[in-house]
């Protein structure tokens, strides 16, 4: 607890290794198609990262992160869709200049809440603020009333279900179950060709590292320690004079904003957004990424996301009819054998050997390698 820097030596090595892996190794070894897939997986890593802060450290299990992923993604997609719906591109419609799905639903003018999304600056602000404020409202409503644990998880699920129904039901304004498809350009720059995908990949990795650094900072700051304390014994923290609710709201908002950034990246990378990322199932999947990576490990979240999605893609390509069983088996195996996920394997088996080889100058500070932290029951 004496180390006040926000990155210690072993973590710095870990971050550098991840950087080399993402920036050098993957782009050199993968073709553009596979690299674009990795870019898609990494958009979920933002969500997993947020969950590490919120669930791993704060002990707040949110089963509704898809909501924030979706809000961020839809904000981005609305901007891109407006740009793709120029009057020239949409001249076969009965009302040119509005998104195609509005035309199919007999809407004849652009709704007022779509208007500001002509501006990229507004869109970027909205990607951060809309989910942030939404999380603030939910968080305030729940945590100020001391709703927590499983009740909170259930409510987040309900929110995910409600938002999905809202999006599907208002298809004239949102594209309904089809979502917003055929996104083409960002400020006139075509996002579909290969070179654009590569550029977007590097931009995304850059953003990911900014978020990793923010997460590191939170974790090593006093705030991070309060979060851990809160997770372990909420009442003691409260009796010590801290406002538990505010800290919880903060952690939840950070997780929401991270998820939203991931969603926006997704819309850019994949070129569409649909309600299938908002609902309960994708939200739970996102928690699984974090669990596989190790919910206490910031870098583990990234590796976990990559591993699960790689497994998903390759299993489904090889066994198109049986792959779900394989994936299910993988989850059960990880949870049964390695409750702390990939990071747990690393911390228990690999790290000690490395430490023996390279003598450390200082005693190892707390973190996911520390079994007393890892053994807590954060979900409670």
């Amino acid at each position, binding site marked *: 607890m004496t180390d006040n820097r926000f990155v210690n030596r072993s973590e710095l090595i870990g971050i550098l290794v991840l950087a080399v892996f993402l920036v050098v190794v993957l782009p050199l070894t993968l*073709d*553009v*198609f596979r690299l*674009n*897939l990795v870019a*898609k997986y990494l958009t979920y890593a933002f969500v997993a990262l947020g969950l590490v802060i919120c669930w791993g450290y704060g002990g707040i299990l949110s089963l509704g992160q898809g909501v924030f992923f979706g809000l961020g993604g839809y904000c981005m997609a609305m901007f891109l869709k407006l740009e793709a719906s120029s009057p020239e591109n949409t001249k*076969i419609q*009965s009302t040119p200049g509005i998104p195609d*799905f509005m035309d*199919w*639903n*007999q809407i004849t003018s652009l709704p007022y809440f779509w208007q500001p999304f002509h501006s990229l600056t507004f869109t970027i602000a909205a990607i951060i603020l809309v989910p942030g404020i939404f999380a603030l409202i939910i968080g305030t409503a729940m945590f100020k009333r001391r709703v927590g644990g499983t009740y909170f998880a259930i409510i987040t699920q309900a929110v995910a279900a409600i938002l999905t*129904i809202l999006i*599907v*039901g208002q*298809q004239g304004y949102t594209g*309904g*179950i*089809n*979502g917003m*498809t*055929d996104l083409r350009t960002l400020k006139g720059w075509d996002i*579909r060709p290969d070179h654009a995908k590569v550029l977007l990949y590097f931009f995304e990795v850059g953003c990911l590292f900014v978020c990793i650094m923010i997460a590191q900072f939170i974790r090593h700051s006093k705030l991070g320690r309060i979060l851990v304390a809160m997770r372990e014994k909420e009442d003691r923290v409260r009796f010590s004079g801290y406002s538990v609710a505010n800290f919880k709201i903060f952690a939840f908002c950070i997780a929401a904003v991270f998820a939203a950034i991931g969603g926006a990246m997704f819309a850019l990378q*994949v*070129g*569409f957004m*649909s309600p*299938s*990322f908002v609902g309960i199932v994708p939200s739970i999947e996102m928690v699984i990424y974090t669990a596989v990576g190790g919910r206490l490990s910031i870098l583990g979240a990234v590796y976990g996301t990559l591993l699960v999605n790689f497994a998903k*893609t390759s299993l*489904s*390509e090889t066994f*198109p*009819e049986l*792959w*779900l069983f394989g994936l299910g088996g993988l989850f059960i195996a990880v949870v049964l054998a390695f409750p702390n996920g990939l990071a747990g394997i690393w911390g228990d088996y690999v790290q000690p050997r490395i430490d023996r080889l390279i003598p450390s100058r200082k005693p190892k500070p707390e973190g996911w390698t520390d079994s007393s932290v890892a053994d807590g029951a954060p979900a409670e």
Partner: protein
Amino acid sequence: MSDEPNKGLLSPLRRKLLMGMAALPAITMLPKASFAQAPATSAVNTTGLAVTDTEVTVGILHSATGTMAISETGSIEAEKLAIEQINAMGGVLGRKIKFIQEDGASDWPTFAEKAKKLLVNDKVAAIMGCWTSASRKAVLPVVEQYNGMLYYPTFYEGLEQSKNVIYTGQEATQQILAGLNWIAKEKGAKSFFFVGSDYIWPRTSNKIARKHVENVLKGKVVGEEYYPLGNTQFNSVINKIKLTKPDVIFTDVVGGSNVAFYKQLKAAGIDLSKQALLTISVTEDEIDGIGGENIAGAYACMKYFQSLDNPNNKTFVPAFKKMWGEKTVIGDVTQAAYLGPWLWKLTVEKAGSFDVDKIAAASPGVEFKGAPEGYVRIHENHHLWSKTRVGRAKLDGQFELIFETADLVEPDPFPKGYQ
């Protein structure tokens, strides 16, 4: 499960013969060139597709898992059957068709990802795939960007036309208008009640149906209700139906919701032998889940029923059952999926090339006389000319053909006066 399919597998020769026989009607229309020496690969494939001197690769992209698997499995089976039959006849331009199957997993982004994989990595010459409108909308930008060829089997809402897609199902006006005309004339129907699932296909179909009822048939729509996909509570709409007493209930409820809808209709005492009900979303596949006793008497309006009595269908149905089991049923979309590989083969032979641009250009006018639904032809707009048929559901889960249009109906994806 019956042991019939196993027996079939044990006797590959018999099966092959049967496949060949099922394809016989198509032989008559093959250009003579296809029996000649296969042309050089460099001549028929100038864009680097997966074509060798002996093989050509196509992709099959449907949901083998997830909620849509129950509907899409039939399409996968039909496409595999068509490919096997084409191979038994010598393939396409002297090349056997090899397929790569990918699972869209009932998830639209996955469809887009897999479509891209098939086109970019595997360089497939064509994709037979997609089912829901949402999956097609997700895949469409991909096939357009990478210049692929998609054969799409489902009846759908229209308002779309692409150089890179051949729509082997019916678009909304083709499917609906003749059926409404028939029921208005036959039953003297004046008032209609619409019930649908809440997404683009039912909404667009009902919009077209409403315009037709109000402007052409001079009737009235007394109610229009939508329910989310997967909804199982239809009591409130059934009460409204009882209050308004429409001449016809017109439904496009899809998927598993159908089971609840028809069971609740029956439980509420609505007798489909007295109350006319016209559905555009229930095929033999859905009746499998609904149960024949719950839906007997309802009318369905589409282009194909398993019970069609024509020589093509009489060879197609046994061949399908031979390959996939006696208990399988064949719905409208399954038949449309079967057309995909055949139309592609005929177009390739007409164009004399696997190049996508040449196939897209050669598609209009391609005709398939061996279609189980009867003769079909590709229109300039890449949809099919096809007949519209009305069938009445029977207790055994099959439809009895009641009415069919005299001529092929022209596909009109952007109908004037219906938008």
